[in-house]
């Protein structure tokens, strides 16, 4: 079963240069991510994952009455911003929560765990032409 792990951090944690070592060396977080991604891969559960640029680089698109409306910024004006995601394939929620808890960002930010609707994988839908319903 696929779960999407949405990674959120407070925006100041993203921008705050004070928390990074002044000499520009790795503060450990980047190597932690490497360890984490390797662990996902070694366990055979990694489906996809990316880090995202900050919310200030987001553009939100809406189509209204045939017109394309663009907004500078994210769609949800929340304290915590989406900064990345993973898609993992594990048997049940406890396994997904276990992986979420091990993510380096879980210590400072928050991870939202969302199950993907089975059979909704876009590639599968494109081939079969059937769209699943989230019963």
């Amino acid at each position, binding site marked *: *079963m696929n779960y999407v792990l949405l990674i959120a951090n407070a925006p100041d944690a993203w921008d705050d240069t004070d928390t990074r070592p002044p000499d520009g060396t790795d503060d450990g977080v980047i190597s932690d991510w490497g360890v984490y991604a390797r662990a996902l891969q070694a366990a055979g559960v990694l489906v996809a994952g990316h880090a995202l640029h900050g919310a200030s680089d987001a553009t939100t698109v809406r189509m209204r009455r045939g017109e394309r409306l663009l907004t500078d910024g994210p769609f949800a004006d929340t304290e915590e911003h989406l900064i990345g995601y993973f898609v993992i394939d594990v*048997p*049940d*929620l*406890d396994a*997904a*929560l276990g992986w979420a808890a091990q993510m380096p960002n879980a210590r400072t930010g928050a991870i939202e*765990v969302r*199950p993907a*609707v089975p059979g909704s994988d876009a590639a599968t839908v494109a081939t079969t032409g059937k769209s699943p319903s*989230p019963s």
Partner: protein
Amino acid sequence: MRPRSRARPDLELTPDAAEVEAALGRAWSEDRTAVLAVVARRLADLGRAEDAVQDAFAAAAATWPTRGVPDRPGAWLTTTAWRAALDRERRDRFPVLRKPEDAVHDFPDARTTTLMALDHETDDLSDSARHDAVLSLILTCCHPALALEAQVALTLRHVVGLRDHAIADRLLVQPGTLTKRLVRARAKIKHTAISFDLPDRTQIEERLHGVRLVVYLTFTEGYVAAAGAKGRPPPVCEEAIWLARQVHELSPDEETTGLLALLLLHHSRASARWDDDHSMLGFDEQDHSLWDTGLIEEAAELLGTTGAAEPGPYQVQAAIALLHSRATRGHQPDWSLLTDLYASLYRMTPSPSVAAGYAVALNRTRRSQQALALLEPLLDDPRLARHTGLRVAHAEALTLSDHKDAAAAWQHASDTATDPARRDAVLRRATRAGQLDNEPMP
């Protein structure tokens, strides 16, 4: 559906209706949870499993009077529920078959045949398999990914077996709200694939914290909800105790033992909490002859088995309740031991109610200055300023310190009580506080 055993050969006549009735009642109280647990685990779907169990009990009510009560009702019900679940699944998949007479065995397919092969051999469950199934059902209902209120509702619905409207009654919520809450929670279990399998022992230990909280909340929520119906213990308390006994039987660790003892002790005083005029009675005002000594002794025995490890909060609360229960009218409980217990409880769970209890214990051991030092910072917090328990402890500490604001503090304390019965209890306490100084030290 065929029953697992035929009617006794010597009984060509219809079995005794009362006997069947009793057997059905026994099966409901002894087997229902296990049957549901086994079927829910196989289906990984609580809602469907619950429907199937309903079908099985309906089938039992229809067939047992003529064909006799099976030798092993639990196994019979499990097989029947499982077949009912398969029937329902087939009817859902093939709408054409939505007629009651279309039994599953008339239309076998590969999948149902494989599933059917499971039933006869596995449904006569060993005790340990039943235990595992019920424990995993409890852990699923109390999964930490569900909101606490959803955990309580699911547990009352599926483990205890109450109907939606009965749960709504006990928790003082609208039946519609409760049903929505249950539907949403079951959907989350299904969509997020919360497991129905038993986790490993370390994880079970961790998850039991949550289970104990649900049991405890079920008990206390019931008390709060029943405060209107004074004079008799609310039924949900019995249900919570039943639940605590189940969990204790499945996992007799020290904290679960402490929880069961605590609930028994609270419950032992249920009939003494209110007097004939429906006013709420404080501990030392209660008629001790109304306390259920059987429950108190059982709790004492349970607590006697603990103490191997550092006691957790439920054990300490139970010890506190037991000390109070041991003090008979005119005799003070051991307040200095109570002070130590409250100190340790406050370290573990620094809640306002525990602070209030701790402060009262300090007052009774002539340490009202220490009580004031504990209470004043808490009462400065606007969220706690109207906490009746804290206010009462504060007024009592001021009285004992001969403080000029004592009278005003009692007034303040009684003003915070919204329930008239509680307000009267505060005022009676104010009268007695002045005499505390003259009481002999314990």
